[in-house]
């Protein structure tokens, strides 16, 4: 078998700031939140800043550049600093990037983190212009390519994912009740956690009474708008065994996607055969190849849930159910903690715990592998984490309790 990253590295520390509703983390700065999360993760790992020699990032997660971060935090020597291209699609993949840095010998102790503060910039209108008295000012400046989308009024990710969801409903008969089950099961998980921003019960009546935002997505199909930071620390597998917590071995990882998936929702020209998908299928195939296992081996799935239908589509694309059957699959209770065949987003996800662009999913996977999760899956030995269905790259990582035999 060819050389791969399998089991070469492990996540040994996780840390987070409190999670805040949008804007409530002020007067802290995003950079400060990043530092606090890293210190918490290092403390959890039994390590210090003196040990850190790498940063493996995605979507500008530091809230600034590595140069200033290393200077401010006093990192002795930076031996690896890299960031996956794209946005939230790289969340899980940033841990894979850390494992790659370690396996290649470029660094020994690598931090991945996301710090988010939405006080000034609401992602819900990422692609929207902001009108000013004198002319127009844009949150996202118009581009030659964006000109083929934005004049239709598609200015927020939720609207764009609603378009994909309509196609999925048309092709396969997926229903709003299925999306509701994602929102409600995720809320049930969040309700038992003190860290969750949303802890009130969510009923089917509440769901259908909620305001429609972009048909078929209503308020509860959208993730939260949050501030906060989450960091994780990755080291080599041998070193991991000497640290305080049981290691969460990086069993496998992959990122990328088909080239013609491309800009995805900000393009709408994706190939017919994967338009109504999460874009994850080629990434999933390579993940299972590296792992030497499949969806049937996974104990808990932390699936990036910026919008509830993307949980359904990822369940299909990772092979938990056939393509087109994701709706009935969740409708039958398969993703419920305790009773389902594959518990999903046991931490409450982006939908109900907090939206830190997917890093809460990595943290939860580590806690599940350690056996310390609030909503622990009994005997969890293999946890799947995915990054956001979005433009290329999407990504995923499999964390394991033991090295494979």
């Amino acid at each position, binding site marked *: 078998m060819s050389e791969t990253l399998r089991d070469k590295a492990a996540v040994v520390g996780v840390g987070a700031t409190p999670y805040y509703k949008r804007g409530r983390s002020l007067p802290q700065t995003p950079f400060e939140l990043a530092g606090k999360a890293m210190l918490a993760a290092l403390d959890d790992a039994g390590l210090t800043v003196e040990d850190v020699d790498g940063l493996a990032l995605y979507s500008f997660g530091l809230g600034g550049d590595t140069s200033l971060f290393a200077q401010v935090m006093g990192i002795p020597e930076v031996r690896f600093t890299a960031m996956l291209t794209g946005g939230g699609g790289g969340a899980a993949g940033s841990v894979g990037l850390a494992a790659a840095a370690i396996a290649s010998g470029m660094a020994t102790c690598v931090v991945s983190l996301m710090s988010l503060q939405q006080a000034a910039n609401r992602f819900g209108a990422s692609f*929207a212009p902001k009108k000013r008295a004198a002319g127009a000012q844009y949150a996202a400046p118009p581009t030659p390519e964006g000109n083929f989308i934005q004049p*239709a009024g598609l200015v927020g990710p939720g609207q764009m994912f609603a378009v994909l969801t309509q196609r999925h409903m048309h092709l396969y008969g997926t229903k709003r009740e299925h999306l509701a089950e994602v929102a409600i099961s995720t809320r049930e998980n969040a309700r038992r956690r003190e860290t969750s921003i949303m802890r009130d019960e969510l009923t089917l009546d509440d769901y259908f009474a909620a305001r429609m935002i972009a048909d078929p997505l209503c308020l509860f199909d959208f993730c939260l708008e949050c501030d906060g930071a989450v960091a994780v620390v990755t080291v080599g597998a041998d070193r991991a065994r000497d640290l305080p917590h049981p290691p969460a071995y990086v069993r496998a990882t992959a990122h990328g996607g088909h080239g013609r998936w491309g800009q995805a929702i900000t393009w709408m020209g994706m190939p017919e055969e994967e*338009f109504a998908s999460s874009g994850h299928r080629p990434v999933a195939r390579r993940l299972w190849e590296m792992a030497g296992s499949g969806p049937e081996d996974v104990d808990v799935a932390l699936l990036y849930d910026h919008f509830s239908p993307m949980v359904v589509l990822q369940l299909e694309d990772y092979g938990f159910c056939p393509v087109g059957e994701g709706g009935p699959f969740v409708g039958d209770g398969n993703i419920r903690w305790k009773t389902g065949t594959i518990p999903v987003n046991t931490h409450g996800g982006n939908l109900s715990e907090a939206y830190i662009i997917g890093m809460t999913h990595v943290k939860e996977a580590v806690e599940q592998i350690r056996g310390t999760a609030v909503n622990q899956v009994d005997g969890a030995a293999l946890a799947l984490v995915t990054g956001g269905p979005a433009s290329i790259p999407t990504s995923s990582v499999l964390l394991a309790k033991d090295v494979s035999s």
Partner: protein
Amino acid sequence: MTTAQLPPAELIHLVPDVFTRPFWEAAAAHRLVVPKCTTCGTFRLPPSAFCFRCRAQEVEWVEQDGRGSVYAFTVVHHPVLPDFADSVPYVPIVVELPGTNGCRLVGALQDVDIEDVRIGMDVELVWRDVRDGETVPTFRPAVRRSS
């Protein structure tokens, strides 16, 4: 019955580059043209520097009649920004253009009850003059002609 509106014109700003300019110049003259690779015959949208199939650069601009069918859509009910408050509901649709190897054009659908929008429905292009020299595609349900 709720009739679809259009998103606010004042928020639309075209910034053509060398590859998209012929499309928008034709649009301003109320003509739909789609670039076709002169080497391998593949259409592409948006217009771009290379053919994604053969990587050649030269194109011919082929005029289309603007008829197609709804491939996917959403009905936007909630304004994400206050500037959209007077424009909801509006209906962004993705339209597949026949005979263009699957090229899709995105625009707002008008002259329609939002309850009647369906994937597969036939639509036709309506040019929307945003301001002098800037025109964008929108759509309306196709008018059935007896033939």
